[in-house]
């Protein structure tokens, strides 16, 4: 066993270690990669019932306007002005209680991180934004946001809290344990709930392609909250292994793999995260490259890939067209338990990106025939209102 003493823990680490979690280092934290039943069973359980994931390694934070004299819409406008200096999404246009998935572009149009930004619903909480960033990017992101907001707003980290995801078709029944409010949330909406676990913040969101919720709980209430959720026969704890196979089947990017400082949001297929009002204003970092790619098509694109045989292809596998020319590289690859075959995502030259294009993936020096496929591999099952 490698030395894990330097790793950070979450409020739930000891619970997982005592409930059969196989603990591994991930993004500087000691996290369960799987439980006794294994990745395949955990993956399928989440698609059919409800999986509970400890994602407390991630980086929740609040950005709070210093000027408390501003209230309501004026406060939201003021905080949005700051956020829109570093985010390419429409922050000002967020409805109260709405979350958006967005990116943190660098000045060259690459991606420093992907993240959530949310506007609270409560009238007395305007002038505050919620963020959730990736574990491995926390320090960089928080420093960047704090600097952008210097003198006007203050970043308050909340990554000492537990962040727990409940994902799957039964999640909506399970979340009823903490009150009826969250059941009425639409996809990408959030709300606070007061109860036996203190004030928790519940969003209808996730990283599996399924309906579900993510719950931010203060550390002292985290284990009691999780134990209550796990008491439901439809809930099992799920490790990071199945989290990865679930998000891959759902066609969702993993930062550091499918997104990095060289990939633009347009190449990644994330043009939908940049709303028209921001495109028109062209005032966000990297907008020159990003808007040029929107207008003229990028030179490469993130695509889904499925094999014609049974061999998985992993991150880093070279992609060639049928003439043998290198046209791209795999950025995420594994087995899709719901699809029943290996699946992969990668970046390929735009000429090879059409769905149905046959390509060779080089696995252990052997070309294996794969085909460009539509993303997601498994249809999303989000709870969209109306």
């Amino acid at each position: 066993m490698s030395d894990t003493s330097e790793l950070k823990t979450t409020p739930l680490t000891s619970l997982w270690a005592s409930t059969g979690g196989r603990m591994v280092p991930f993004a500087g934290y000691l996290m369960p990669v799987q439980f006794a039943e294994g990745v395949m069973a955990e993956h399928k359980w989440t698609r059919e019932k409800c999986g509970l994931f400890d994602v407390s390694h991630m980086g929740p934070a609040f950005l709070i306007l210093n000027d408390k004299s501003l209230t309501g819409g004026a406060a939201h406008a003021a905080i949005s002005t700051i956020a829109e200096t570093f985010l390419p999404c429409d922050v000002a246009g967020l409805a109260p209680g709405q979350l958006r998935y967005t990116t943190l572009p660098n000045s060259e149009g690459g991606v420093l991180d992907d993240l959530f930004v949310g506007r609270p619903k409560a009238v007395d909480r305007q002038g505050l934004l919620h963020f959730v960033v990736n574990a491995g990017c926390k320090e960089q992101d928080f420093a960047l946001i704090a600097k952008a907001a210097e003198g006007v707003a203050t970043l308050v980290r909340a990554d000492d809290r537990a962040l727990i995801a409940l994902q799957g078709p039964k999640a909506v029944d399970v979340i009823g344990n903490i009150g009826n409010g969250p059941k009425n949330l639409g996809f990408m909406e959030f709300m606070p709930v007061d109860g036996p676990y203190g004030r928790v913040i519940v969003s209808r969101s996730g990283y599996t392609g399924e309906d579900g919720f993510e719950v931010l709980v203060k550390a002292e209430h985290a284990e009691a909250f999780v134990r209550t959720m796990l008491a439901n026969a439809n809930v099992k704890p799920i490790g990071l292994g199945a989290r990865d196979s679930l998000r891959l089947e759902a066609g969702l990017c993993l930062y550091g793999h499918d997104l990095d400082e060289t990939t633009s949001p347009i190449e990644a297929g994330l043009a939908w995260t940049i709303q028209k009002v921001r495109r028109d204003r062209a005032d966000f970092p990297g907008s020159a490259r990003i808007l040029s790619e929107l207008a003229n098509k990028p030179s490469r694109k993130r695509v889904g890939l499925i094999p014609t045989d049974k061999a998985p292809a992993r991150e880093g596998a070279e992609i060639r067209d049928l003439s043998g020319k290198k046209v791209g590289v795999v950025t995420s690859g594994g087995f899709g338990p719901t699809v029943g075959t290996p699946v992969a995502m990668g970046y390929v030259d735009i000429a090879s990106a059409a769905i149905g294009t046959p390509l060779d993936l080089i696995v252990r020096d052997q070309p294996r025939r794969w085909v460009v496929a539509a993303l997601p591999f498994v249809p999303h099952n989000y709870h969209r209102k109306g």
Partner: protein
Amino acid sequence: MTTRYTKDHEWVSVDGDIGTCGITTYAAEQLGDVVFVEVPPLGKVVAQGGDLAVVESVKAASDVYAPVSGMVVDVNAALADLPETVNEGAEEGGWFAKIKLSNAGELDDMMDRAAYDAYLSGL
């Protein structure tokens, strides 16, 4: 029949000069759900400790090393359609390849079952 084990969790069961090779139950449990096995081509000459096969779980690909030196004379073709056989019976139906031994003396330096069990209990 003599069965011997390696520190990398392969086993070889020798009948005459033919050794049937696979990974141990412990190794299969560590890997988790096996979704693909790349067996070697017939006739491949392998050295003890060299690459023999690749076993892929949901999460990762892992090399399987040849427990003994020799030439591959048979492979378990059933694994192509039923890779999960490795999880169900790693030390039985989940064998990967049969090797015609070129140096039976290698077996003398390998662990028997009792030694392998002792090795596992120390991990």
